[in-house]
Every structure is written in C-alpha cells, then in structure tokens.
C-alpha cells in the first residue's frame, strides 16, 4: 500500500484492509478486536502489562522490537475505523461503505499521534452497540484497573486481596470529540464476581453462563509465575474479568438481569440485594442436581451427545494447553541460549582486528533475538486465555445438561408416581391385587376392609391422582420450557464458540507470522554483520 512509512506491511494485512467486508464479518472482526485490542495496544504503545493508572503513551516507531506489533496496531486501527464508519451508516443499507484510500493518510496519523487506550476502547465498544443488547446500547463497561487492598476477612484475619475498578459510562458520551465524560466507577473483588456468577447459574439454569477467568494460574510454563499477586497474572485476570462482564452484557437474556445491573452500578448494598433474592434456596437444589447420581430412563439424545462433546472438548483443550505451555518453555530456552552468543562474540571481538566489528554487532543482534522471546510469549498467553475460557465454558455446558437430566428425571418420577397411583386405584375398585402391598397382605390376614374404608381410600387416591396429574402437567411444561430455552442458548453458544475459536486460531497465526518476521529481521541483520567480518 502507498504511504506506509516503514514498508513492512504487505501480504495478508494489506489485502484485508482493502477488502470488502460484510456485516457478519464486521461483527466478527469487532469481537476479535475487542478481545485483542487492549493487549496489542498495550504492547505496541510500549508499556508493560502492569497495574498502573491510565498512562498517556506515545508510540515509538523506531524501537525495533515493537515494529511488527506496530504493524498489527496499524491494522487494527484501520479496521476499527472501517467498522466504526460502517456502523454509522449500516442502518440504511447493507452495502459497506469502504474506508477508501483517503483514510490511509489518517492511518498514518493515528499511528503517529498520542492515543489513549480509553479512546481506542471506546471505538471498539461502539461497534457492539449497534448490534448488541439493550444494556450495551445504554452503557459502556470496562474493568479499567486493579489495585491491592488489605482488610479483615471472615475469620477476622488480615489479608491482602486485589480489587478491580469497574467503569461504566453512558453510551452517548462517545460521540463527542475530545475528552470523554468521566465514568461512574466502583471497586469489586474477585469473590463478588464469583457471587454474581453463582446467582446467575441458579437463576438461569438453562443458560450457559460465561465463565470467570481462573482463580489460580494453571498451565503455566516455568517462567510464568503461579503467584496470584504477580502483576502479569493480575493484568491478565483484569482482562478476563472485563471479558466476562462484556459477555454478560451482550447476552440476550442475562443482560437484562437486575442484579447484574446493580453489580455494575451499586457498590454498597449489592451483596445484600443478591442475598435477598433468596437464590440460595434454589442453589441447594442445584447442588443436588450436580452431585446426584440418578438414572434417566429416556435420556434426550441431543443433550447426551452435547454432554459427551463438552467432555471431549474439555479433555482436548486441557491437553492442548499443557503441551502449548511446554512448547513455550522450550522455545524460551532456544531464544535465551542465543544470548550467550552475544556475550561470547563480544569477548571474542576484543581480541580480533579485522573481524572485531562484525562480531561485535552480530553479538548485539543475538542479544536482541534473545530478548524478543519475552514479548512473543506474553502475547501467546492471551491465546491460551482464549482457549481457557472455552475450557471453563465446558463446565457451564455440562451443568445445563445435568440440570436437564434432573428435570427429566423428576418428570419421569412424577409420571411413574402417577401411573402407580392410578393402578392402585384400579385395583381397589376392581378388587384385584396386582401390586403387592403390605396393606393388601394385612387385609388378607386380618380381614377385608369395609366398603366405607375402601371408598375413602379411593377418594383419597383420586385426589392424589388429580394432584399428580397437575404436577405432571407442570413438570412437563417446565421441562418443555427448559428444553426450548436451553436449546436456544445452546445454538447461540455454538455459533459464538465457532466464531471466537476461529478468530483465536487466526490471531494465533498472526502471532506466529509476527514472530517469523522478527526472526527474519534479526537474522538478516546478523548475516550482514557476519558479512563484515
């Protein structure tokens, strides 16, 4: 493309930028950008992923390790603008208005000016507004920061924990240029997120509730710390929590929940509000459903195969994450060992005359090479996080299946109970004993009942049968409603999963490409230096 300053962009990204995109693709790209933007912005703008107040970074295009990420950032900038501009005009027609070549100048500008991460996030969230839920149309949500607190816990001991800042902002504020309106904020700790999720699980048992990011770091490769207070872990968790809230906010059913809304808006008193809903009573039955072992006579084949699928998915993703962590470990070793070349070449160059300069500068490139792996692997962690999200999703899927099994079981029990009572009544009326019962035996032994006794029994049974029929009808209705709602959400989830994982794989490929380009650059430079030996 013309007008590029460093001549590095070519191939796929350029073609994408010129490409004609449909609504669907825009939406998918929007989702992908939303989940990826923060990381890439953070990296390309040169600040490490640590807890810190919102910085005002400047892009330094001359810093060699960041160039490929800059390319990524530029790509995202262009796509953002395309999406934002098309979102404005999409209400009228289905034709995409292309960001024509005029905007390529703007691209260069964007990349060379100060841009806060707030602004870039605003642009992203814009895209979800047009296609999203009522909630997202009203407000923007983000988890902006993390901080440490100390306080007394339930057993009155001092503990240090992390709190996260939730920012919400009315959606209209974005359309103003310049400084955005100050957001409403409140602080939440991880256990409150857990409480919210438990509430949702109980209240909407037919919904696959989005999972939380992991409580403790798992599938770590050796350099990554497993410490919960490690800043990089906290940062990744912050991103995960934001993702969790946005998933809730874009869910057609969950986004309308009032407790969720209060979670975002009411810092004090939220806990009480949740408890007041009395969801814990339902929670007990939910616990029962998850741990009970019961046999269902006529299992719904769709649910059974879904359960098996989610078990398979869970196994394979766990395996993938484990091996990926080992691969990361090994790759780290390869890169870091090259750092030794840097040291040795430098020492060697001191004793050589003609070869000295070439060796020395080659050594520097070896150091650069060795250092580059840190950023590469940190970025890959976000790919791992995307996979982990779906690993945890499988649990949510399984619990929906289990809940369905429970309902099915209760339905069968109710039907069985009813038919037993009907049979009893029939026997009493006709005098035939088909079912062995103690009463029957005792009446045989101790004499027949009186007609009055029998009549009252029959009457009682009839009432019981009526109640049973009513209960069965209820259970049936409950079951059908559950199946309908659940299957609705399962279809939605399937689509979302396919979209997200496909984008994850694509972004993984982009990461690999970026790593290869860095490698080509470093080794080409080294080769030049060796040439000067």
């Amino acid at each position, binding site marked *: 493309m013309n007008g590029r300053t460093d001549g590095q962009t070519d*191939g*796929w990204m350029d*073609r*994408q930028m010129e*490409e004609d995109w*449909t609504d*669907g*693709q825009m939406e998918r790209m929007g989702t992908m950008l939303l989940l990826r933007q923060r990381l890439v912005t953070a990296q390309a703008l040169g600040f490490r992923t640590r807890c810190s107040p919102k910085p005002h970074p400047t892009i330094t295009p001359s810093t060699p390790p960041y160039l490929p990420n800059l390319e990524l950032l530029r790509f995202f900038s262009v796509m953002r603008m395309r999406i934002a501009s098309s979102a404005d005009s999409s209400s009228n027609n289905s034709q995409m208005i292309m960001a024509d070549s005029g905007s390529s100048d703007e691209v260069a500008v964007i990349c060379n000016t100060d841009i806060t991460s707030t602004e870039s996030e605003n642009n992203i969230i814009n895209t979800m507004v047009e296609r999203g839920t009522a909630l997202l149309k009203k407000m923007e949500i983000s988890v902006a920061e993390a901080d440490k607190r100390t306080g007394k816990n339930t057993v009155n001991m001092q503990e240090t924990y992390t709190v996260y800042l939730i920012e919400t902002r009315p959606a209209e504020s974005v359309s103003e240029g310049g400084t955005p309106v100050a957001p409403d904020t409140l602080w939440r700790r991880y256990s409150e997120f857990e409480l919210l999720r438990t509430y949702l699980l109980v209240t909407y048992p037919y919904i696959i509730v989005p999972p939380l990011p992991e409580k403790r770091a798992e599938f770590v490769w050796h350099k990554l710390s497993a410490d919960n207070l490690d800043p990089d872990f906290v940062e990744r968790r912050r991103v995960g929590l934001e993702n969790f809230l946005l998933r809730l906010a874009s869910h057609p059913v969950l986004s309308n929940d009032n407790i969720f809304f209060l979670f975002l808006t009411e810092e004090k008193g939220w806990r009480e509000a949740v408890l007041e809903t009395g969801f814990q009573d339902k929670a007990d039955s939910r616990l029962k459903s998850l741990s009970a072992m019961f046999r269902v006579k006529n299992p719904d084949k769709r649910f059974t195969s879904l359960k098996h*699928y989610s078990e*398979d*998915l869970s196994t*394979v*993703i766990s*395996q*993938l994450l484990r*091996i*990926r962590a*080992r*691969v990361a*470990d*090994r*790759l780290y*070793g*390869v890169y870091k*060992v*090259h750092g*030794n*070349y840097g040291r*040795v*070449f430098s*020492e*060697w160059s001191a*004793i050589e005359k*003609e*070869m000295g300069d*070439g060796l020395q500068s*080659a050594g520097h490139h070896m150091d650069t090479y060795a250092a580059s792996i840190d950023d590469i692997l940190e970025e890959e962690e976000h790919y791992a996080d995307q996979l982990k999200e779906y690993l945890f999703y499988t649990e949510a899927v399984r619990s929906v299946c289990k809940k369905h099994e429970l309902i099915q079981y209760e339905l069968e029990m109710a039907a069985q109970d009813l038919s037993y009572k009907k049979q009893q009544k029939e026997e009493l009326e006709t005098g035939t004993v088909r079912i062995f019962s103690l009463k029957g035996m005792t009446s045989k032994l101790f004499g027949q009942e009186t007609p009055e006794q029998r009549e009252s029994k029959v009457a009682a049974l009839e009432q019981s049968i009526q109640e049973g029929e009513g209960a069965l009808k209820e259970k049936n209705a409950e079951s059908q409603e559950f199946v309908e709602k659940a299957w609705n959400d399962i279809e939605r989830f399937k689509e979302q*999963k*396919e979209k997200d*994982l*496909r984008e994850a*794989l*694509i972004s*993984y*490929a*982009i990461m*690999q*490409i970026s790593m*290869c*380009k860095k*490698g*080509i650059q470093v*080794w*080409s430079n*080294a*080769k030049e230096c*060796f*040439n000067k*030996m």
Partner: protein
Amino acid sequence: MSGAKVPADISGHMLDLDEEEDLEVFSKNTSLADGNPMPNSPDSMVNQFRLDEENEEEQQGAINKDIFVTVDNPESHISAIETFITYRVVTRTTRSEFDSSEYEVRRRYQDFLWLKSRLEENYPTLIIHPLPEKFVMKSMVERFNDDFIETRRKALHRFLNRITEHPILSCSHHFKVFLTEEELAPHRKLGPGFLSRMSETMRAMANSVRGLRSKLEEFAIMQEYVDDFSNKMCSVDKVTHRIIKEHREYMDELKQYGPTYFQWAESEELLAEPLKGVGSCVEKCSKETEEQIQHLSEVLVPTLHEYVLCADTLKAVMRRRDNIQAEFEAKNEALASKATDKEMLQEEVDDLADRVEQANNALRGDWSRWRTSMRADLKSAFISTAAKNVDYYEKCLAVWESFLLSQRGESMEQRNGADAS
C-alpha cells in the same frame, strides 16, 4: 586404476592425452567431496578451482593450483586381528615431482596420523590443519556409525586439501609418499622412531623449565592471542552445542503439539478445518526445525570444532618455536662459559641460530596465512548459519500466511453463500 602410470618423460605431453583415455579415466563415479567436485581435465582443473574459490585473498598462490586430492569411499577392512576403516585417497596432479598424473591409494586413520607427525617434525613452526580426533568414548557414537564415518571422512578430506593449498607443505616428501605409495607400512618404519621422539619431548621439557631468555614481543603477543582464541573457540563451540540441544527439545515438543489440533478437529464440525490447518502448520514448522538442526550440525559445528583443535595446534606450534629458541640459548650459554671446543660449539650455535631464524620466519609467514583462512572459514560458516535461519523463518512465515489466506478464502465462501441466499 592405480596402475595408470605414465612414464616421466611423457610428462610434458600431459595435455595431449588421448580423448578416449581421458574419458575412461575420468568417467569413474567419484563421490563428491564437500565443495570440491572432481575436475575433468588438467586444464579445467584450474578453471574449476578458480570458479570454486570464494575468497579472493586465498587466490594468491592458488591460481596455479596443480594438485587435487579427494578422500572418499570408506570401506571396512576386516582381518583376524582388527577391524578398521580405510578411505580411498585419489590424487590428480600436473606436478613434475610426481611420476604420474593420478594416483589412488587406500589409507586408514593411523596413516593420516603418521603424515601429520612427519610434517610436524619437518616443519615444526608451520601451522598444520588439524586432523579429526580419534574415537572418543564419551561421545556415545559407535565407531562404525555411518554419521561418524562421514564426518571423519569430510574432515580428512579438508585436512589433505589444506596441505595441498599450502605452498611449503604440499611439497613435502612425506606428503608425496602418503599420496602415491601403495603400501605405507615400509615408510612408516623409517624416520625417527619412538625413542627419538621421546628424547625430543624430554629436551622440550627441560627447556621449558629453564625458560626463555627473551621472547620477541611479537611472539609474546601471538601467544596471548592463541590462549584467548582457544578460550573463545571453546565457548562458541559450547554455546552452539547448547543451542542444538535446545532446538532438539523444542522440536520434540512440537511433535506432540501438532497432533493435538488434529485430535480436537475430530470432535468439531465447522471448526475442524481451521484446526487441521493450524495442526498442519505446526507439523510443517517442526520439519523446518529439523532441517535447521541438521544444517547447524553439518556446517557450523564441524567448523567450530576444527578451530578448537586448531587452537591446540597453535599452542603446540608456539611451544615448538619456544623450544628451538631455548635450545639455541642453552648452547649459546654453554659457548660463553666453556673455554675448550669453542670452534665446534660456535658452529653448533650458529646452526641453532639459523634454525631459530628459520623457525621464526616460517611461523611469521604461516601466521598471516592461517589468520586469513581462519577468518574466511568462520565467516562463511556463520554467514551460512544466519542465512539458514532466515530461510527457516521465511519458510515458516509462508506456511502461516497460506493458512491465513485459506481462512480468508473460507470467509469469502461463506459470504458468497450468504449473498446467494
């Protein structure tokens, strides 16, 4: 083949050899040694050599290269007492000292050792390219393992070729014997035997205890450089081995990583295709890693190893030079103190003084020669490694980019499908 000896007086008519004879001689299937394919005729030998030469600096003295040697065709030789490998050594030359224009002999490793020690004796301060090491137990490589034999063959080839390139060493009588005599055993018995070598060692030790009176500064500097160079070479060699080890472990993990994507694809519908795509990308990259490792092992490692050995050679050369000087100084001292036999002693002292002069000059001349070829060898090995790494990343880049393209193609299909409906 080795019987095709042309009598000496026809040597002037070498170039008039019958075409047919030429073809018969040169159509034999000689396996290519690394970097030096066999030339087809004495004329084209020269041209070929010029084309092959990369480093112009080495062309001084090489433009008229008139002797070519290859080492190939390893074969096991099994006898009642022992089993060993022999290598075929083929020589083609236009030099008049040689009775014929080509020779073929079979030599075993011990024969090369003999040649080296003869050369060291006759030219104590010339820098002789190192031989591959004897079989080392700790390397856990079988003595008759194909890779080991091939590595050794290449190193032996380089050893002989370095000698042919050396203006002085290539004229050595022992070298000629090595290349031409069918049986080396009778020649090995001649020359200084074990005992004389022992006494030389003892004299050397005695001299080193006495120490040198004064060492020319240039040699002191040289010594320092040699010690430093030796350290650095060992370090670079170690780092390179470490790198190979890490690469291997990385590749092992990659081999498990790819299949997991395929396994996942089995339980998916729409996702199966991109998953398989990623899996096959990983597999292709792991193959490239394998090639990368191989390249390192075949190019950089042997070169570094040879220069580690070179460092030891240099140290030995410096020692021998010091010994010669020490001997002279000892005799000189004796001359000063003794009253009788002054004349005879004076002659000896003068002889030794000449020897010292010769040794120093030889070393000086060879030193810059060695420095030049060291620079060329290491430079080319590092360049080759860097180029291979660039190639590796370019190949992996292509693999991932084509995956990305295929995904874009997928979304285009979907869009077209959506438009159609």
